[in-house]
């Protein structure tokens, strides 16, 4: 009986610890979100969206940084999505089971978690150094390199979920492979593909490291893609580490904006994905 008691006690202890671990994880999420909302809301006003970043002491906003982030995210997604989508298509449709696909999948999974700062160094080497200056385009390309693995992975997974019978039915009607993929497989996997793109945007919109020495930063309003451009993550980085209270406040507000955007995107992506599985 005492052995039984001991086993029960040990079970209670370890299960308690597991529940505690889960509680701790949730508590962390809550603490971080709370700090963000608490500190970020204090500086959230119209000026954030209507004014440029200013020297310390003035009332500034984040308009140029928000604009820059949107532009560079757009460039990154516009370049990265087609590449990832097409590569994922090859892996799930044409090249299924070939050696090339196995190798690409392996490398892609590594790139998915590779340190993003190294991507920044790479783009610095091939673009910034050759062109002789930092630019928004270089920042966009760095983000595109991060988008590709995310989109590739979800595209492949989602296309593999499309039942083979659908493709066979289309082929039996005489459709060539390319049309089967475009009109049948893509349509059937549409929600999943969209999820991949949304997740990629979420991933990219908070990336800081690859932008540090590609897009750099810009104090002023600039729409020139060939020049350094302000962007939220780098502004947050610089302002948070500055000694000025009003800059730090803007950094918190920027952080809140990014987090809200990222969380919204990932929740929307999840909703779309789960709606698909329900059907």
């Amino acid at each position, binding site marked *: 009986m005492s052995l039984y008691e001991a*086993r029960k006690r040990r*079970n209670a202890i*370890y*299960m308690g610890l*597991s*529940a*505690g*671990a*889960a509680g*701790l*994880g949730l508590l*962390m*999420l809550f603490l*971080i979100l709370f*700090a963000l909302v608490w*500190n970020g809301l204090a500086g959230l006003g119209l000026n954030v969206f209507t004014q440029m970043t200013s020297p310390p002491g003035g009332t500034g906003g984040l308009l140029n940084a928000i604009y820059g982030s949107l532009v560079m995210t757009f460039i990154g997604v516009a370049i990265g999505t087609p*590449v*990832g989508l*097409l*590569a994922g298509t*090859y892996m799930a*449709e044409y*090249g299924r089971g070939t050696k090339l696909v196995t190798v*690409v999948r*392996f*490398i892609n*999974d*590594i*790139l998915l*978690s590779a*340190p*993003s*700062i190294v991507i920044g*160094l*790479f783009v610095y*080497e091939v673009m910034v150094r050759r062109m002789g200056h930092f630019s928004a385009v270089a920042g966009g390309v760095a983000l595109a*390199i991060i988008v590709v693995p995310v989109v*590739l992975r979800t595209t492949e997974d989602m296309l593999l979920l499309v039942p083979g019978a659908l493709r066979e039915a289309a082929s039996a009607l005489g459709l*060539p*492979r*390319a*049309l089967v993929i475009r009109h049948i497989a893509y349509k059937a996997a549409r929600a999943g593909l969209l999820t991949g793109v949304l997740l990629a945007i979420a991933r990219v*919109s*908070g990336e*800081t*490291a690859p932008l*540090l*020495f590609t897009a*750099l930063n810009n104090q002023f309003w600039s729409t020139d893609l060939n020049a350094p451009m302000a962007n939220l*993550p780098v502004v947050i*980085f610089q302002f*948070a*580490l500055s000694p000025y209270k009003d800059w*730090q406040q803007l950094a*918190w507000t920027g*952080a809140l904006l*990014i987090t809200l955007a*990222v*969380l919204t995107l*990932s929740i929307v992506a999840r909703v779309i994905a789960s709606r698909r599985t329900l059907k």
Partner: protein
Amino acid sequence: MTDLALSKPVATADAATRRASVLRRFSLTDAVFRNVTRASAILVLVMLGGVIISLIEGALPAIRAFGFGFLASESWNPVTEKFGALSPIYGTLVTSAIAMLIATPIGIGVAIFLTEICPPRLRRPIGVAIELLAGIPSIIYGIWGLFVFAPFLQTTLQPFLISTFGNVPGLQTLFAGPPYGIGILTAGIVLAIMVLPFVASISRDVFETVPSVLKEAAYGVGCTKWEVVRKVVIPYTRIGVIGGFMLGLGRALGETMAVTFVIGNAHKISGSILAPGTTISASIANEFTEADGALYTASLIELGLILFGITFVVLAISRLMLMRIEKKKG
């Protein structure tokens, strides 16, 4: 219908040529599409090759100047242009070790909770919440770590560690010095919070691959939940859990922003984990744009090359292990 076709032989010939041209167009677009998609897949390999080649090219001046001594030297002096990677490598390894030491047991605990004890109705929301934690950009962890977490540690955990272990022989040096708030330990804990969701969600996924028959058999002979986890679930999924651990480690090693904010950026190796230090990624993030002189830049790029090498190996091992458990499942 046949009559109609026969009565218009011209139209049939027309249709035949049209069909031929459509078929030609079909096979042409198919070939084009096939090759475009294949080129995109190959582009992923080219990207990897490009990263490696360009980093080696960029690091060449530093490799020539310092050779293997770069890995063993602790000096980091932009004025005399003497650079060594030892202290960033040390900082990277130590912060990651602290992070994994904390995140692994907690992550596995979360996974056990989600797969074994959580009421089914809460399973999905809690799982999603943990995954959302993984989606928060690292700069958010950085700013939170700097303004909220570091001051908290400075006034609570760190004085406690110093007063408790400060006089214990052996641990003395590990917990020496004033509580700065920022430093190696803080960076390690922030990293732990960052990689926790990765470890947790992968452990949960591999725990779910355990056939219920196995678990039910164990429950059937009277095992407690913990005994089922310890004797059935974990042995069955060992490779997958290690794969998840390695994935988290890969993330921790390469993480930049969360660390840069709270590490303190000191190019020295200190015995105390409360002291400021630096990591590879933090050094690059902090110094790259300000680096003047070709050798300085090249040294930072060589640091990046080393980081890429380490994380590549760790992530490759992680993938190989997770692939084995996927094979087991399928």
